[in-house]
Each structure stands twice: as C-alpha cells, then as structure tokens.
C-alpha cells in the first residue's frame, strides 16, 4: 500500500466516517484511562504500558500504532486480563460498557473473553492448537458461552467461516491448522473472534505475517464486518499506512504511552506530536521519490530505563528543558489529543 493511496484513501475514509460515524452517539464501548502495566523482572521494572488512554465507540475502528516494543500488544492483553506473570496491571481505569474491568472476578473474565470481547492474535500458526481440529477449536468457543447443542455450535461455526470468505468451509472444519495456508488460518482466527457476536474485537497485528494482497482483502473484510455488526475494533499495528485506510480514529504509542490520538484524518494531515510527524514523514511516497528518506534519528529507549519526563525527548528536534517533565494529554483540537509541550510546532 503506497502512501499516496493512503493519503487519498484518508480522504474517502473521512467521508465514510462522517456518514456512518456512530461514535459519540452513545456511551463508548470501551473507555481506558491511564492504563499502566508493569513487569516486575529480576533485571528491574519494565514499564511496558505507562499511560494509555483509549476510547472505542460502537462500530468504531481505532488504530493503535507503534513500533515494536512500544507496548501496544501488552495493551491489548491488558484489556483482556491476559497479562502473564511477572507482569500485572498496576494502575488505570478500564470500563467496558460501563463495567469496571479491574474489579472483575476470574469467572467474569472468562464470561467476557471470547464472548463480549474477542482477540485476534498475530501469528495464526501458533495461536491455533496444532493437535486439535479446526471444528473442535471453534465449537468449544461457542460452547464455552452458550448452552447449545454441539450441532448448533457447529452450524454457527460454518456460518461464520462462510462470512469471512473461506471457500468450502465444511472441509476446512475437519482440517488441522497446519493443513491451511497462512491467510486461511488468520481468517479462521477472525471467524473465531466473531463467533459469539462480541461488542469489541482487539486485533493484534493480524495481517503482519501475511502477504500484502491477502492483507488488503482481510482489511477490507474486517472493515465491512464492523460496519455491518456495529462491533468496535481496536487494530494494533506498526504500520501507519494500514491504519490510515482502515480506522476512524488513531492512537499513536511510544515507549508505553499514547502520545497522540484523534481522528485518522486529523492525525495524518495535522500531526501534533513530533513522533507522529516523524512517522508520517518517513513513509516513502511518489512525491518524495529520489530524495533521501527522512527517518527519526536515534533508537527506541529500553523500557527498563526510560528517559525522565517525555520519553521521546532524546530523539526530538523540539526538545527543550520543559520536556524533562512528563507532558500531560492536552486536547488541542476537537477530539484530538497530544502529549507534548511543543505540540503542533514546526
């Protein structure tokens, strides 16, 4: 997906958003404030997630963008209560349909997972159990939350497989994961997420491991499904271009914090945070052809010892002494927030 297409695309996305946008037309499906997930290792405390604010409305697609190590996957796991030891959520508020997820019991979590909130993982080869058949893995997901017969569950699985565009679904059901291609496996994973009609889907880089053409198909289908069913979607990725064509809103993460969030159009065309700006500027477009690329200087800091204050300041062209203080999230324009003392400059 070239950036040109993206920028153009964002024009049409903008149009789409204004037509279909249900965000704001009711309470958000998911409301996250100040989420912090830390890992207590022998080497020290790894602050994987250190201040994340998110909100997802009904049928809204939110892109969570960040490089590897920015904490985006852990954010996804935190929202499902799947953070493994030695990590745990230490602070913040997670409200799902108004319910406070941090107070929730283990059995309530199990009722929510796969039912109201579903997750799609990155590598479908490893997420599907290699020694169990596809139908076993789908039927158990239905039976875990619904008291129905096995046949009914299987019928539902068939229905959903068809919906995600898998040819000859009956055969696929009887197959083992390794007998399916990568794209097929990921569609199965998506189908599993849709089985119980969740209100929110968290997709963790679901297309990163796939061919570009398959990627395009899946993106299109996910978008269609969410619009049709009114399911909220958080799409976690490192690829801003992907998100630009898909999402209604974008949240940019850096070193465990969300540094900018707003509508896709706003963030891409009027980036406030220098990091976002750098991300967009480093994407090659036909207009920059022949010119040297403009990467962000420096390297991501280790999450074990982040720089004091704003984590980006060691690589930032706008950094001043004020940046030694961690910036607050400020709403600079309507529903467009940024954590930067020098937001919007240059």
């Amino acid at each position, binding site marked *: 997906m070239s950036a040109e297409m993206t920028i153009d695309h964002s024009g049409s996305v903008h149009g789409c958003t204004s037509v279909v946008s249900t965000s704001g037309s009711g309470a958000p499906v998911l409301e996250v404030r100040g989420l912090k997930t830390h890992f207590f290792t022998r080497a020290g405390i790894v602050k994987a997630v250190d201040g994340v604010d998110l909100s997802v409305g009904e049928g809204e697609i939110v892109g969570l963008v960040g490089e590897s190590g920015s904490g985006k996957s852990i954010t996804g796991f935190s929202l*499902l209560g*799947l953070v*493994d030891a030695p990590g745990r959520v230490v602070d913040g508020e997670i409200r799902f349909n108004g319910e406070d997820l941090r107070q929730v019991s283990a059995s309530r979590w*199990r*009722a*929510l*997972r*796969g*039912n109201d909130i*579903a*997750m799609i*993982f990155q*590598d479908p080869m*490893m*997420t*599907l*159990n*290699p*020694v*169990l058949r596809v139908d076993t893995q789908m039927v*158990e*997901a239905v039976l*875990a*939350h619904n008291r129905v017969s096995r046949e009914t569950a299987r019928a539902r699985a068939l229905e959903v497989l068809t919906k995600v565009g898998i040819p000859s679904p009956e055969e696929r059901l009887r197959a*083992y994961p*390794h*007998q399916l291609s990568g794209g097929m496996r990921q569609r199965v*994973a998506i189908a*599993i997420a849709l089985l119980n009609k969740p209100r929110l889907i968290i997709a963790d880089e679901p297309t990163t491991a796939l061919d570009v053409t398959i990627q395009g198909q899946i993106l299109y289908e996910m978008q269609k499904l969410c619009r049709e069913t009114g399911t909220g979607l958080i799409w976690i990725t490192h690829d801003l271009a992907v998100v630009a064509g898909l999402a209604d809103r974008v949240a940019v993460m850096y070193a465990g914090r969300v540094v900018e969030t707003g509508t896709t159009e706003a963030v891409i065309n009027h980036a406030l945070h220098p990091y976002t700006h750098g991300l967009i500027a480093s994407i090659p477009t036909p207009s920059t052809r022949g010119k040297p690329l403009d990467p962000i200087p420096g390297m991501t800091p280790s999450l074990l010892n982040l720089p004091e204050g704003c984590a980006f300041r060691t690589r930032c062209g706008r950094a001043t002494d004020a940046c030694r203080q961690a910036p607050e999230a400020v709403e600079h324009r309507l529903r467009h927030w940024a954590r930067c003392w020098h937001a919007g400059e240059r």
Partner: protein
Amino acid sequence: MLATIIRRLLQTLVVLLVMSALVFVGIYLVGDPVSMLASPEATDAQREAIRVSLGLDKPLWMQYFVFLGQAVQGDFGNSFLTGEPAMRLIVERMPATMELATVAMLMSVLIGVPLGIIAGLRPRAVSSRTIMTGSVLGFSLPNFWVGLMLIMLFAVQLGWLPASGRGETVSVLGVPLSVLTLDGWASLILPASTIALAKCAMIIRVTRAATREALPMDYIKFARAKGISEKRVLGVHLLKNILIPIVTIAGLEFGQVVAFAVVTETVFSWPGMGKLLIDSIINLDRPVVVAYLMLIVFFLVLLNLVVDIIYTVLDPRVRLERRT
C-alpha cells in the same frame, strides 16, 4: 508406512543374527554345562553320551547353524536342565512379567503425569519443588533395595502383604492373569510399586519439562482468550500436546521395565521371564538364555515400531505430512 515397517523388520533380523551369534559364542566359552548336569560320579563315557545327546560334540560353527535352522522354525532347542523346549519355558512365564510391567507402567503414568503437570504449572511453588525433590529421591534409590525395604515394612513388620510369589490367577483367553483377583493384587502391589517408584519419577520430570515448554505457547493464551474454562485449557489443549512426548518415552521405558524386571523378580521371587533368565545364566542353560535374548530383542524392536506408530497417530502434523 509399509516400507518403513519392512525396513524395520529387516533391521531386526540383522540385529537378531548378530546378537544370536555373539551370545551363542560367548556362552559357549563360559563353561561346560555337561559338568553341571552329570552327577560327579559319572564316568567319562556317560559324560560323552550326554554331550552327544545335547549336540555339544559338534564344532561350534556347526552347532550355531543347527541352532539357526531350528530357530527359523521356532525351535530354540531344549533346556539343558529340564529338557523342555526353551522357548516354551519362556513363553509360559511371559504373562507374569508382562503383567507386572504393565501394572507398574500404568501406575507410573497415572500418578506421574498429574504430578508433573502440577510441578510444571507453577515451577517455583513449594508443591512443585517438593515434587521435584521427591522425584530425585525416586530415581536415586536403588531399585532392589526399595523392594527389600518394602518387603521389610509391609510383609515382615506389618504382615499386610506377602513377601514373595504371585497371587491367584484367572485365565483370560488362555492367559493366566492375576490382576483380576484380590489375592493377585496383594502380591502384585509391592513389586509393581518398586518398579513404579523410579519410573514415576522419570515421568514426572518429562511431564514437567513438556508442560513448561507448552504453557507459554500462544495457543494456550488464545484458548484462554476465547473464554475456555481453565480445566479445559489444561485438560485438553495442554494435555493433548504434552501427551506426545510422554507417551513416546513411556513406551520406550516399558521395554526397559520388562528387561529390568530381572531384578524385581529376583527380589520378590516373581515367577516371570527375568527370574528364569538369572537362573539359566547361573546354571549355564544356554538354550534358554539365547531364546530369552532373541525374544527380548524382537520385543524391543516391535515396541519401538509400535511407539512410532502411536506417535504418528497422536501428532496430526506428522501423520498428515506423510501423505503429501
């Protein structure tokens, strides 16, 4: 698949030939069975007569070929001691050994797998560390000594269980089994526990290692993300995956148990193949020793083959790859 089986059987044949030759020659060199069979007052002529009757007067290589020729027909010669067909003697005592080995292995797996999973779930917990330390004890204590101590405790001091021998048997399809009688169990439990102690320790270790390897896998996390009950996550998703290495190892260990039964059968005077072997070695009863070895080799290779097949059945990745 068929090709592999055939290849395996051919390999077995080669191994059998080599083994038989080695053992045949070796035992020939050891001693003179005639002196054991003949009474001390026997004259030379009488000794010679015995020698001839046993075919021991012929040169070694000829004896070996005679043996081979007969072996192919299933005739492994007669015991020097009792005159009965050697193979029949062994086969008669096979059920006892197999019964002991099977019960011991089952005990080890049924106790060892759950303990191993517990130890693997939370490696740093007190319970799992106790289990692991216990397992070191399990395979460190010498097998025969454990048997002796069990006898001392349960048979001598407490008098609950018999110190030796096999219990009452019930014939099933012509095979006498003692697992079907209460009395049989009373005699079976001590020797089976002796064997099971060390094997259980091994299974615990293997299960724990497999569990620790499987738990961080994505498919476990994904199963939880689907909202599946923890019981099912562990009992189906985890278990089916770790069963593959466990069954493979348990299968191979079964062969070792059958062989090592020699010791347990001696301690408990259990009327199995192992005891027969020891007695035959001491008595220089060559046909029986050779017949036993042939049988064991064949059994081990068969076991290997069966384990391979089971592995293929359990792991769909292997099974279905073969076809394409």
